[in-house]
């Protein structure tokens, strides 16, 4: 048991889980996205299929995986393939519905920076870099971002385009010829942002007790509130029970 009320990580996991549909094929890493997928599988979307970027499909881990290469992801999985194969046969081929991405910055048009703060050649802060996120952002049908809502994480424009969102908005993404539909939601500890028709992120929902002013204060551009901006349903008892008792009993990620 972690605590009585839900915390911000639980709030984000639950809201991310609710975005998944039954039968989605999801490209996933460890941590919060992994918890969200496994929560969705145990609630409304039992037929989700998980592909871990290390090339493992249909894992049944006997413990909570702590890294993308955790051996418990492999023992009892349904298939394992090479890194080239997982990126080509699954991702580039168009066999993946959903991806999860993170990064140090996400901007007004959903572009993500996981590479560098400052100048690329003379970095102020050197971040880990793309990994597979350049490809995931371009080739999955839709992707989600889960991130704490802080002004430095939400600049008007990212310092470096590691992963494509809607670029400068409008049909800019489409014109590049990439296959996927881009970011469909950003789940934060304050609420949900979603792109409008122009690809600009707007505040689509607030978590219970959060005000739109809080969202604006923590966002680096004048963010708009959707006309139909909703209040999210709080995590329910069953969701919290699964998270705390089944998925992450030692509170490593929640």
């Amino acid at each position, binding site marked *: 048991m972690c605590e009585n009320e839900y915390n911000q990580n639980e709030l984000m996991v639950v809201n991310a889980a609710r975005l998944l549909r039954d039968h989605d*094929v999801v490209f996933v890493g460890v941590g919060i996205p992994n918890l969200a997928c496994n929560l969705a599988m145990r609630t409304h979307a039992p*037929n989700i*299929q998980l592909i871990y970027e290390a090339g*493992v*499909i*249909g894992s*049944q*881990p*006997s*413990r*909570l995986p*702590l890294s993308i290469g*955790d*051996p*418990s992801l*492999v*023992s*009892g*999985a*349904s*298939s*394992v393939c090479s890194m080239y194969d997982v990126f*080509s*046969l*699954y991702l*580039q*081929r*168009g*066999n993946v519905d959903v991806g999860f991405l993170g990064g140090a910055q996400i901007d007004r048009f959903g572009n993500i920076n996981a590479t560098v703060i400052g100048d690329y050649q003379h970095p102020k802060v050197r971040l880990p870099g793309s990994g597979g996120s350049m490809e995931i952002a371009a*080739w999955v049908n839709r992707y989600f971002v889960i991130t704490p809502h802080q002004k430095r994480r939400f600049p008007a424009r990212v310092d470096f385009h590691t992963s494509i969102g809607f670029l400068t908005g409008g049909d800019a993404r489409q014109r590049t010829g990439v296959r996927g539909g881009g970011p469909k939601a950003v789940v934060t500890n304050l609420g949900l942002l979603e792109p409008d028709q122009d690809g600009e992120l707007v505040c689509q929902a607030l978590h219970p007790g959060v005000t739109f002013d809080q969202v604006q204060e923590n966002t680096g551009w004048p963010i708009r509130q959707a006309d139909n901006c909703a209040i999210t349903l709080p995590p329910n008892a069953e969701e919290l029970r699964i998270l705390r008792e089944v998925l992450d009993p*030692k509170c*490593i990620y929640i």
Partner: protein
Amino acid sequence: MTKLMTLSEAIQLHVHDGDLLYASGFTHLIPFAAAHEIIRQGIKDITLARATPDLIYDQLVAAGCARKLIFSYMGNPGVGSLRRLRAAIESGELEWEEYSHFSMISRLKAGASGLPFMPMKQTGAVDLEAQNPAFKRVMDPYTGEEVVVVPPLKPDVVVVHAQRADSTGNAHIWGILGEQRLAAFASRRVILTAEEIVDEEVIRSDPNRTLIPGLVVDAVCHVPYCTHPSYTQGYYDRDNELYLAWDQISKTQEGVQSYLEEWVYDLPDRAAYWEKLGPEVHRRLSAGTFLSQPVNYGDYSNQDNHDV
């Protein structure tokens, strides 16, 4: 969710007049039972793609199912010619599109990988390139030299045979691997036939052996002895006698017609076919036992190493 159905149902559901069909398997695991069911169902105008057409496409062409052939080696392996195919091409009845093995398989590689083309090094033999406009050239931007490229092959439907699969289509394959995996990923629809349908625990005991994931499979059919007169490694041997006999049978269209009457039209399914072959053939083709040594994947359910 189970995708189990009879082969007859799977063919009816997934193979249509005019489709581009790839029945996969390089000399091994050739799904003859699926071809026979297609013949029985009278499906027409199929474009048949296979690196090595083998007897399976000689039969489909002779039965009048095909409009066009895409191939890279049109021989009866170890015997000689594929007479019905050869006659149909020499007479102009059958369209064809020809590759070398690597250019053919590179087309599947592009299709399976979601790439708009695959490059290959030049071979200097340009006569085939001149006859087949699908071959193109691209300049290597690093050296300025030209490479040959081929476009993706994306079949409408692929048939893949496996030794064992679970009911959702996760399949273990061993022995000669041919182009099975690429064909399955390249295709719009996949029919998987298997010698054995096993509990998913068998598949999950060795995930590295799962070359066809259920994710890409549309139908799973339990069809023992599906690949005779080709073979299934560890299950039964290649029937070289029939490959030799085919050289005689296929000398005339009538010869093939009467073979098809006896072995396809007059039989309901593969079980009847295998039974008709009789115990002497069963014995002759039996595979002995030569087991792989197991590997340990490890049981990591012990949580000790997670208290960090």
